[in-house]
């Protein structure tokens, strides 16, 4: 008896140790968080130091993530998956965090509050950690915890510039919506938990659903509640109401981070949860790479409606915006709609298309936000009107902005076109033609408001007395870091497509 327990204990200890070895990126971030905080307390006079440490910690975690490549393993008794899919999102989030740190080093908005720089850096690391966990979370508990970790850090960061009233307003709105949506999601989880007889991880849910018959109405209610929770994270319509206010109020660096990394992590959970839980892995007779849903449960139709609403509303409302940050907020809602289309088709191609889109989106959206930040630093305004004649005052940055916007609108030869191409391709391949058509019309609408900004930059003359705007070399280097991939990936996209194809693999099915 005693011996058995010891052996069991030993096995458990072995498992935990083995899991810890696969948990290295997350552990690194945890340690970084603590060190950045401690360093900030000890070296009070040099707050930038902790930012540098945080940056290095994130870079280190990326290195560890790269070393995990190829692993397909479930760790901590099915709490977290370490598979190519999770690794893809970890790399995406990690890279995004690095770029955001670089932004922050030169952001006057962030640097003006020198005293709180330590909290800023460590919270950014905590947020990154939360997203790393979201990328791999496979148990309902882990999903909630990771979303909460990300959420709590971002609520604080959204209100980081306390002095600005709209920043505090943003934080408050964010936290209220966040609390509500998490509550809804938890409720959905609890229904699922009851329906499946106590399944905690998504594999068990899948098993329970595929063996026993489940009350379909309860299942739909639970699914809708869960979609509400995740939909908030990816700002899908009608769970998007917080987005414009938070994006406008938060510092640009945080807005950029939320719009790319937070959305990516949300998509990671959405895709993994639905794909693993509701997919009939025993279905036969489908072409390779296609799946079918359990018991004809057509949750993908719900997502299709969601995606149409999301992109159409995002685009239509963006047309009327005069604040560039708000415009980009609505445009990011629309982009979430495009990406949702990739999930609808229930195929590996669709998922790969979403992953490709995310890589592309990372560069172009961060780039657009960075230019907004640079210009706001100099002119003090994010109004579209303040961009009048910018092309003649700051040609390099303006041309970069045009490239980012053209890419966001999805025109070749930029990377944005490749993202759209693969989404549309996966839709047409699965004969979702009406949805592809809606998406195509939407990209025409989106061109209108992107070009509105371009028009102000190049077609209008600057106000009298407005001189040239000069940027420093590091700032231009960061713009180049984002603009070069936006162009090159448009003309030579094999690397991202191959990377995305390899990253579709996740534990649980096939």
């Amino acid at each position, binding site marked *: 008896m005693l011996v058995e327990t010891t052996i069991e204990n030993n096995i458990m200890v072995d498992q935990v140790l083995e899991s810890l070895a696969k948990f290295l990126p997350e552990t690194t971030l945890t340690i970084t968080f603590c060190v950045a905080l401690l360093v900030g307390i000890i070296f009070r006079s040099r707050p930038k130091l902790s930012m540098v440490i945080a940056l290095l910690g994130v870079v280190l975690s990326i290195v560890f993530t790269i070393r995990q490549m190829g692993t397909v393993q479930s760790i901590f008794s099915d709490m977290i998956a370490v598979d190519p899919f999770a690794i893809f999102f970890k790399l995406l989030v990690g890279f995004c965090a690095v770029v955001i740190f670089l932004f922050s080093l030169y952001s006057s908005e962030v640097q003006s509050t020198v005293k709180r720089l330590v909290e800023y850096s460590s919270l950014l690391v905590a947020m990154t950690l939360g997203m790393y966990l979201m990328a791999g979370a496979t148990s309902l508990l882990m999903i909630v915890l990771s979303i909460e970790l990300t959420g709590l850090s971002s609520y604080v960061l959204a209100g980081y510039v306390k002095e600005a009233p709209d920043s505090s307003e943003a934080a408050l709105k964010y936290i209220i919506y966040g609390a509500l949506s998490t509550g809804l999601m938890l409720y959905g989880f609890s229904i699922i938990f009851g329906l499946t007889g106590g399944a905690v991880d998504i594999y068990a849910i899948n098993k329970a659903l595929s063996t026993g018959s489940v009350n379909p109405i309860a299942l739909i209610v639970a699914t809708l509640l869960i979609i509400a929770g995740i939909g908030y994270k990816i700002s899908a319509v009608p769970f998007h109401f917080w987005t414009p206010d938070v994006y406008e109020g938060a510092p640009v660096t945080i807005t950029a981070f939320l719009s790319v990394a937070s959305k990516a992590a949300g998509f990671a959970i959405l895709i993994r949860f639905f794909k693993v839980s509701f997919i009939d892995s025993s279905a036969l007779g489908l072409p390779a790479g296609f799946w079918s849903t359990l018991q004809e449960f057509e949750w993908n139709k719900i997502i299709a409606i969601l995606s149409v609403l999301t992109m159409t509303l995002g685009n239509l409302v963006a047309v009327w915006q005069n604040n560039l940050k708000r415009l980009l907020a609505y445009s990011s809602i629309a982009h979430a709609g495009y990406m949702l289309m990739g999930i609808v088709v229930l195929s*590996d*191609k669709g998922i790969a298309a979403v992953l490709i889109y995310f890589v592309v989106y990372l560069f172009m959206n961060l780039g657009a936000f960075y230019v907004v930040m640079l210009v706001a630093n100099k002119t003090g305004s994010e109004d579209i009107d303040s961009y009048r004649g910018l092309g003649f005052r700051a040609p390099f940055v303006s041309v970069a902005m045009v490239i980012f916007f053209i890419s966001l609108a999805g025109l070749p030869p930029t990377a944005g076109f490749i993202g759209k*191409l693969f989404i549309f391709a996966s839709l*047409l391949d699965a004969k979702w033609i009406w949805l592809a058509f809606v998406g*195509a019309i939407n990209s025409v609408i989106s061109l209108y408001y992107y070009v509105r900004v371009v028009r102000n930059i190049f*077609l209008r003359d600057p106000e009298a007395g407005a001189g040239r705007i000069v940027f420093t070399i590091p700032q231009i280097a960061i713009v180049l870091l984002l603009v070069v991939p936006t162009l090159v990936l448009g003309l030579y996209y094999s690397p991202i497509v191959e990377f995305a*194809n390899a990253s*579709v693999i996740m534990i649980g099915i096939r």
Partner: protein
Amino acid sequence: MEFLGIGALSWITFIPIIGMILILFVPKENQNAMKWTAAVATFLQLVIAVMIYFNFDRSLTGINTQEGMQLVEKASWIDIRGVPWFGRIHVDYFLGVDGLSVPMVILTALISFIAVFASWNIPKALKGYMAMLLLLDTGMMGVFVSLDFFLFYVFWEVMLLPMYFLIGIWGGPRREYAAIKFFLYTLLGSVLILLAVIALYFSVTAPDPGTGERIYTFNMLAMMNPANYEPGSLLAGAGTYWRHLAYIALFIGFAIKVPIFPFHTWLPDAHVEAPTAISVILAGVLLKMGTYGLLRISYPMFPELAMYYAWPLALVAIINIIYGALCAMAQQDFKKLIAYSSISHMGIVLLGMSAMNTQGMMGAVLQMFNHGTITAMLFLVVGVLYDRAHTRDIDAFGGLAITMPKYTGIMSVAFFAALGLPGLSGFISEMFSFLGAFQTFRTLTIIAAPGIILTAAYMLWTLQRVFLGQPNEKWASLPDINGRELFTLVPLAIVVLVLGIYPSLLLDVMTSSLNHLVEFVKQGSSALAVVR
């Protein structure tokens, strides 16, 4: 024809880009260097185009076989050897010309060269202007030489942004409206084309030259062979619902570019607001892309539908001819008049195409070329006048023949060519188009014929109001046309005159290709009809 191991078609397409990069490095003050760089780049392009013309083998047919294409360049561009469920993605850098594209290549080179000289006195931001002009040039040339649909689409879209800026920055008072209207209309067409391209991609496979395995392809030539369509795929079969849908999507995409009624409303705005040189390029080259796309893509890839929709096409052609002419007649603005006359003249191209016989097809392609040169002249003529008088109001002038005799002389060549006077190039192509169309659609052609009279009416009426009659005192001191302006107009006038007297110079180039195209469409449609 190779230079430095790179084929003639790559050179002709990318020389403008090289010029553009050079211009970007020229210091801001040195405006002459920018102008001459652009001039040299487009001149080299023209030289290559002329060399292609003289080295072109008139007997090869092209259209649907790689062996029939000339100056072929094929290299692997993107090759993704994927996981099983993804299949392999392969995109080629695939260029080639045949009798259908060579006239367009020559036209593009000629018009671009002239456009640079027509832009000599651009008042602001010359560097950006020349850079955009050359980028546009690459996009246009690329469309006419690419044989891979992906490549074609990239070039097709590359044109949009420079055109937007060229109209939007350097245009007239309502330039912003005109520019965004042009952009949105053409993008709408483009996304429809994109959806059709993807549908075609997932329907057509071609053997990989290395391994022989069949892979999805963007190769346009492979898309023309019904045997390459995978059974059960979206666009397999003949006359299916999906094929109709794809054909219509492609048609709308191209129709917006032509422009075909009712998708034409962007054109008057864009033409009127664009600076002279850009109007010249718009009318001279861009409009031809729509009809080129129909002939290069829609016809051979959907032969049964090309036949099925021939009658409706003839109908819209007639609407274009008559409606365009009537609108032109009602205009006070000289430039708007020319813009509507373009709609009318492009209708003749469509009518010739719809005839589905060799005469009609020859007339159509020749009309594409002739309209390119004649309308370019007309816009240049208007530009010359506007530069001096700063108004385009037709009624504001009168008796200009007295103050500007040289100008009036060259202008009348353009006017008479446009109204189809025998001896000038416009006559030959209109003649052929109507001849072809008469055999197929007798009644419709008879209805269309008065369009010619309307054309003559508005052209002559305009000529009378502007150049004849009592001289307006206000314009008594207008200087006559200068050397640079003559330099832009005279080459076009020579082309118009020579092709009017001896059209075989150009007809020779296209005969075998267009014969083959007609045969191919007819055979294809009857073969597919049997399948159905």
